[in-house]
C-alpha cells in the first residue's frame, strides 16, 4: 500500500496548497478526491444524509477559507479533513455549538514550530502504529473505542448500545485509551532508534 498511499497523499497535499492559493479547480479536485470519505464519516455519526450534506458543505467552506492554515508537518490532508469533519459532526449531535473552543488547531502543537515536514511515510506510520496498538487491546476495549470513534457515541450511549453498565463501559474506554497511549509511545520510541 505504501507507494500508492504516498502518491495519493502527495496529490492531496499539492491540491491543498493550490486551494490555499485560491485555485478553484484544485479545490474542486480536492473535493472530488476527499468528499466520499468525509461524507461517509459524517453520515455514520449524524445518521441523516440531508443533515450530513449540509455539514459536508460547512466543512468544505471552512477548508476553502482556511486551507492556508494546513501544515503538512502536522498531519496528512485526509486526516486533517477527517478531524474537521468529525468535529463538526460531533458538535452537531452534542448540540453545543458554543463548545467549539477546542477546535482543530494544529498550531497548538508544542514544539511543532519550525519542524521539518513529516514525510508521508511518517504520516502513514501513525496509522500503522495505531492499528498495531489497537490490536494489543482487549477485545472489549477495542470494540468500545472503535464504536465510540465511528459512531460518535458518548459513554452513556455506549452503555446502552453494548447493554453494559455505565461504569464498566467507562472503564473499558479509559483503560483502552491508557493502554493505547502506552503502546503508541513505545512504538514511537522504537521508531526513533
Amino acid at each position, binding site marked *: 500500500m505504501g507507494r500508492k498511499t504516498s502518491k495519493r497523499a502527495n496529490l492531496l497535499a499539492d491540491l491543498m496548497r493550490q486551494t490555499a492559493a485560491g485555485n*478553484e*479547480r*484544485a*479545490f*474542486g*479536485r480536492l*473535493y*472530488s478526491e476527499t*468528499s*466520499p*470519505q468525509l*461524507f*461517509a*464519516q459524517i*453520515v*455514520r455519526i449524524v445518521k441523516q444524509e*440531508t443533515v450530513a*450534506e449540509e455539514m*459536508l*458543505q460547512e466543512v*468544505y*467552506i471552512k477548508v*476553502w477559507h482556511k486551507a492556508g492554515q494546513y501544515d503538512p508537518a502536522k*498531519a496528512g490532508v*485526509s*486526516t*486533517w479533513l*477527517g*478531524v474537521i469533519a*468529525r*468535529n463538526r459532526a460531533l458538535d452537531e449531535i*452534542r448540540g*453545543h455549538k458554543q*463548545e467549539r*473552543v*477546542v477546535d482543530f*488547531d*494544529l498550531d*497548538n*502543537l*508544542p514544539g511543532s514550530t519550525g519542524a521539518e515536514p513529516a514525510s508521508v511515510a511518517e504520516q502513514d506510520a*501513525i*496509522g500503522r502504529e*495505531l492499528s498495531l496498538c489497537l490490536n494489543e487491546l482487549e477485545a472489549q476495549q477495542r470494540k468500545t*473505542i*472503535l464504536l*465510540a*470513534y*465511528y459512531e*460518535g*457515541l*458518548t*459513554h*452513556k450511549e*455506549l452503555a446502552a448500545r453494548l447493554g453494559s453498565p455505565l461504569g464498566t463501559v467507562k472503564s473499558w*474506554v479509559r483503560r483502552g*485509551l*491508557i493502554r493505547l*497511549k502506552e503502546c*503508541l509511545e513505545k512504538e514511537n520510541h522504537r521508531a526513533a532508534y
Partner: protein
Amino acid sequence: MRLTDQNVRSLLAAEYALGTLSGAARLRFTVLAAQDSNLAAEVVRWQIRLGTLSHHIEPLAPGPWVWQSLERRLGLGRNAPRGPVSPQRPRTRTIGLWRGAAALAGACAIVLAILLVQEQPAPPAIIEVVEVPTEPAPAVSVSQAMAVVLSNPADQTGWLIVQQHAGAPLVARAVSPAPLAADRSYELWLLPTGRPPISVGLAPVEGEITVTPPPELAELIEPGLALAISLEPKGGSPTGLPTGPVMYQGEVVVM
C-alpha cells in the same frame, strides 16, 4: 480546577478527542482546554492519532448537488470571463430548491429531470479539467451547468431547462405544465434587463425539446437572467412580443 497529573490530563484529552465526554464533563473540559494550550495540544495529538481510523471507513459519495450548492455558496467560477454582455448580476435564487423549506411541489420530479438531463455530475467533470495544471481559467468552467426552474405563482413547476455549459443547447423538459386549450401554445421568453422579451420558441407540453440559441441569445444566458412562459395563440405570439399572460417564471441558476 487544575489538572496536574499528566496521565489524567492525557486521558481526558483522549476522551474528549474520542468524543465520549458529554454534558457537564465535556463542557468542563472545554473550558479547561481553552485556558491551557498544552491540554488543547494533547487533544489535537489524539485527534490526529484517532483520525487515521477514518481511512478505514467505506467511502460514500455525496449527491452532486452538494458540490453545486458549495460552488454557489462560495461564489466559485465567478472569475471566469463570461463575455462582454453585462456586468455581474447577483445570483438571487438558490439551486437548493428541492431541499428544506423551499421545497417545491414536484421537487422529486425536478431532481429526476436534472439527473436525466445532466450527462454527468459536476465534480467528476472537474477532474478532467484539473489535469491541466496552472493554466489560466478557461472562459467557462466545465462545471458551469445552468438550470432554470419555471414555476407558477403557486410554486408548481412547469418546466425545467438545463444547459450543460455556456453555449450548449438548452434542454427544456416539461415537468407538469397546466393543461393547454387546443388553440393555445406556451411560449418561452428570455427577459434580459432593460431589453424587450426575446422569444426562444414554443415550450413543449410534454417531453422535452432541445433549442440551440443563436450566439446573440446564447451570450445572454447567465446566472440571474429571468425567463418566462406566456400563454399565446396556437403557434406562438403573432407580434414577436408576449401577447398573453405570463404563466411561469424562473431564473438562471448555476447547478
